[in-house]
């Protein structure tokens, strides 16, 4: 039994009380005295030359303070990209400028052209309609392959083409991979689309900026997963504000899923305008606006080939992917289809030779960047789909084919540059077979068929690289930032602890789980520990929360700082008890002298640190506060096996999820309740991608899915109860908690099993179907059954 409130306990979340009673403090709940409101006039064409933006009538409208256009930002830096990818030929990617407000051209529907700041939200919107635009509409490029053809309209006139980069990985392996394909006994090929998604956290983005003219201090409240990163990017690259004059606060944030990692133009605009107008400036996105301004996710078109020998061993893997960047490079966009995708192509398998080619393409669409899983779902989906197809072609059991090719010895260096530290893929597959009751499938299929429904079973494995990331490694790969994390542990005089972390919680429950770690380490009640996050004025630095990195990296920083605290407290305790430091043991909140009954309580030591009357002042500073930065030495590699059972209504093509099971290995688990919740949510989004969600544009670049009327969000009725298990635990070997991260697994691991299951169901009724692109909407499934 884990100790109450310690590591391994399903402690109830402390943050719930404020959320359940309506007392959360989300950014839109923040109103500053004298604030003005901004409304962005956004392009309704996908591609056009801005001939004229005449705001004179708008400026004369009631309540209008000022109308800003691209002209106002000509001298201002563009929205920066945080990652520079180098292509197959050693050249750096093409990197266009991304102005705060469009200048010269508009490049996607939703591109902001002008910003009206007025006394009220309604006045700002009213006045925006009075802005007269003269836009010469240009042909739009939407399809990635068409965008790369000679003579295609260019999204950016100053670039040589719409190709951002042509990346090969590992380029040196290409010839050997091709040779292996030449010798293969069997090759399975699959072409597929990883559908474009919109993250859709339920809280739309908000920014409220303030400027103090007498001190020159700026404060930005924003819906961010990483306020320090926003401070760095916006301060250093856009507005030229040094960090000490810019405070960025991300208070309660209503979900992110990646979309709130990035620095957005609206944040920079509000901060800029607050100074220009000497008024706080607030922007609250509507959901409709979010659809055309939040970065989108996924959008890969892939051809994957798997080579096998005569014994069904995987011998080589080759992929060609087109990855949509949208009209501009969002913060992490170039890294997603490359370093977060190509490096995962080995999956759970000992394929010796792998070559991944990715062409990243500019189109007249909203920028595309990380969305829950970010590159790893795309890798997993294609790999697990092609393995399923290979199993069918070879007439072997898809689970047996996977097991035969599992990596079984660790550490394992893949041919795609990463080294898995631990794992046990047979164990998670065994666990899956048990919790999913795969043995009972045949009987359930019979029962479904008796009701006129087709039943299918789909299974897949996944692996992901989390806990991003070793800074020196990502620096070599083109990251323009480090990916460490920091924490300050402040012990107060009476023993309570305040932890300032650079990780940000927007649903993950850090305030509870991080406190459990401290509680375990020191042996005090978790209630004595407060976790503070989301404010650059508190934490020394932070890279934020994404990539399932918070506990693995942020938690490790907190552990390191707490170790420093304990070391110092041990010295104080030794002094108080006149014992040797080496004899002092910390247990259950007391420092004891080993082998004696002498001890002092945690609170006595902390009090001595702040009231240093009896204290080794010659050797030790008073006070008890420590900071640590933790830079991981490797990624973590959560892995698992998922199973989905579906029913298909053969008359309508409607797919329902009947059972879903997930067996994950996250290494050690701090709060099992929270971990399960993370998996549930990921599965919900993964099923959403597989069955419901798709962001669609027409040929002119008009967004066809601009609201929940057309973008299908998963509802409670679309989803079942899930069987989840994380009892298979191979602890991470290189971080102090032995944790791997759990935030993205569900979204990464679930789409392939859903599609595998639907294909299985349709084939059970004799349909010769090998693949249907996601989302497997009723009309697509029905259409597939007609051919």
């Amino acid at each position: 039994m884990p100790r109450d409130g310690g590591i391994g306990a399903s402690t109830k979340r402390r943050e719930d009380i404020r959320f359940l009673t309506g007392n959360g403090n989300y950014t839109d709940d923040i109103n500053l005295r004298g604030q003005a409101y901004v409304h962005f006039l956004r392009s309704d064409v996908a591609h056009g030359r801005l001939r004229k933006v005449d705001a004179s009538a708008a400026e004369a409208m009631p309540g209008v303070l000022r109308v800003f256009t691209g002209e106002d930002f000509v001298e201002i830096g563009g929205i920066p990209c945080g990652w520079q990818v180098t292509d197959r030929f050693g050249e750096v990617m093409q990197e266009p400028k991304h102005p705060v407000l469009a200048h010269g051209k508009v490049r996607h529907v939703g591109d902001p052209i002008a910003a009206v700041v007025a006394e009220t939200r309604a006045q700002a919107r009213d006045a925006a309609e009075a802005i007269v635009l003269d836009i010469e509409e240009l042909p739009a490029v939407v399809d990635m392959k068409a965008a790369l053809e000679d003579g295609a309209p260019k999204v950016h006139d100053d670039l040589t083409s719409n190709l951002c980069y042509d990346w090969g990985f590992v380029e040196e392996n290409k010839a050997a991979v091709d040779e292996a394909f030449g010798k293969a006994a069997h090759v399975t090929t699959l072409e597929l689309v990883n559908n474009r998604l919109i993250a859709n956290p339920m809280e739309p983005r908000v920014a409220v900026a303030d400027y103090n003219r007498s001190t020159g201090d700026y404060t930005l409240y924003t819906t961010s997963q990483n306020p320090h990163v926003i401070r760095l990017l916006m301060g250093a690259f856009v507005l030229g504000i040094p960090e000490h004059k810019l405070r960025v606060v991300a208070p309660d944030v209503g979900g992110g899923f990646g979309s709130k990692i990035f620095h957005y133009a609206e944040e920079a605009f509000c901060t800029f305008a607050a100074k220009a107008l000497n008024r706080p400036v607030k922007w609250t996105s509507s959901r409709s606006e979010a659809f055309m301004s939040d970065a989108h996710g996924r959008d890969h078109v892939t051809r994957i080939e798997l080579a096998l020998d005569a014994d069904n061993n995987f011998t080589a893997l080759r992929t060609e992917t087109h990855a949509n960047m949208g009209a501009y490079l969002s913060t992490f966009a170039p890294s997603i289809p490359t370093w977060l995708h190509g490096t995962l192509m080995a999956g759970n398998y000992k394929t010796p030779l792998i070559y991944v080619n990715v062409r990243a393409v500019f189109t007249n669409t909203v920028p595309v960047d990380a969305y829950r899983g970010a590159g790893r779902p795309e890798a997993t989906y294609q790999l697990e789909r092609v393995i399923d197809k290979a199993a069918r072609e070879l007439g072997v059991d898809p689970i047996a084919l996977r097991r035969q090719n599992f990596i079984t010895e660790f550490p394992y260096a893949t041919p795609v540059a990463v080294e898995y530290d631990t794992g046990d893929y047979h164990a998670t597959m065994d666990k899956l077979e048990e919790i999913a009751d795969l043995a009972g499938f045949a009987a359930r299929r019979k029962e479904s068929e008796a009701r006129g429904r087709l039943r299918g079973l789909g299974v897949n494995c996944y692996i992901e690289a989390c806990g991003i990331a070793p800074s020196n490694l990502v620096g070599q790969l083109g990251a323009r930032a480090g990916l460490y994390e920091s924490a300050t542990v402040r012990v107060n005089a009476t023993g309570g602890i305040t932890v300032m972390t650079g990780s940000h919680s927007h649903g993950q429950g850090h305030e509870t789980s991080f406190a459990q770690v401290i509680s375990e380490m020191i042996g005090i009640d978790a209630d004595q520990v407060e976790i503070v996050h989301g404010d650059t004025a508190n934490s020394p630095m932070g890279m934020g929360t994404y990539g399932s990195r918070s506990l693995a990296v942020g938690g490790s920083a907190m552990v390191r700082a707490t170790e420093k605290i304990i070391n110092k407290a041990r010295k104080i305790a030794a002094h108080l008890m006149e014992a040797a430091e080496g004899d002092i043991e910390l247990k259950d909140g007391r420092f004891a002298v080993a082998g004696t009954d002498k001890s002092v309580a945690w609170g006595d030591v902390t009090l001595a640190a702040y009231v240093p009357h009896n204290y080794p002042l010659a050797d030790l500073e008073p006070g008890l506060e420590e900071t640590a930065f933790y830079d991981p030495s490797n990624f973590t590699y959560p892995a698992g096996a998922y199973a989905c059972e579906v029913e298909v209504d053969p008359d309508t093509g409607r797919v329902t999820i009947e059972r879903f099971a997930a067996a994950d290995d996250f290494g050690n688990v701090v709060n099992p309740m929270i971990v399960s919740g993370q998996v549930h949510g990921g599965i919900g989004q993964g099923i959403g991608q597989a069955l419901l969600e798709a962001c669609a544009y027409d040929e002119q670049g008009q967004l066809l899915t601009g609201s929940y009327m057309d973008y299908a969000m998963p509802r409670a009725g679309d989803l079942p109860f899930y069987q989840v298990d994380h009892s298979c635990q191979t602890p991470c070997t290189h971080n102090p908690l032995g944790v791997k991260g759990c935030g993205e697994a569900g979204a990464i691991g679930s789409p392939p099993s859903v599609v595998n299951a639907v294909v299985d169901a349709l084939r059970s009724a004799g349909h010769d179907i090998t693949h249907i692109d996601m989302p497997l909407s009723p009309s697509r499934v029905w259409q597939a059954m007609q051919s």
Partner: protein
Amino acid sequence: MPEVSMTVNGKPAKGQIEGRTLLVEFLRESLSLTGTHMGCDTSQCGACVVHVNGRAVKSCTMFAAEAEGAEVTTIEGMAEPDGTLHPIQAAFQDHHGLQCGFCTPGMVMSAAALLKDNPTPTEAEVRDYLEGNICRCTGYHNIVKAILAASGQDVSRIAAE
């Protein structure tokens, strides 16, 4: 500007409004009851659900003027005055029925309306009733479980944690 008056969480409330002022705007901006959220503009997400005269409504799809004289209950009115959580709120905490918390007020208000009409709903009835409440964090598993638990039903057989 016309004035509207209503009873909100048992207390009289009034304020100046425009014709176009939505009930949610009146609650958030005039009364500073910011627990009621706006997550969409097409009346689908349900983050704004409150009770008007005992019925669940989307406060983003009702004008404040239409609530003249009405009894309105928001999430802020659910717990006891001493802070004791309403049984539905307690069940959401016990069963981890919330993560980011943004949809939660609407979920709780919808759940309260459901259990008033149907004190022991089935799983399917709970899922069906949440048609107009979108959650992006939980995959709904623990929301459904929490509502079933709040209705007094045994949820121990629903997947652990």
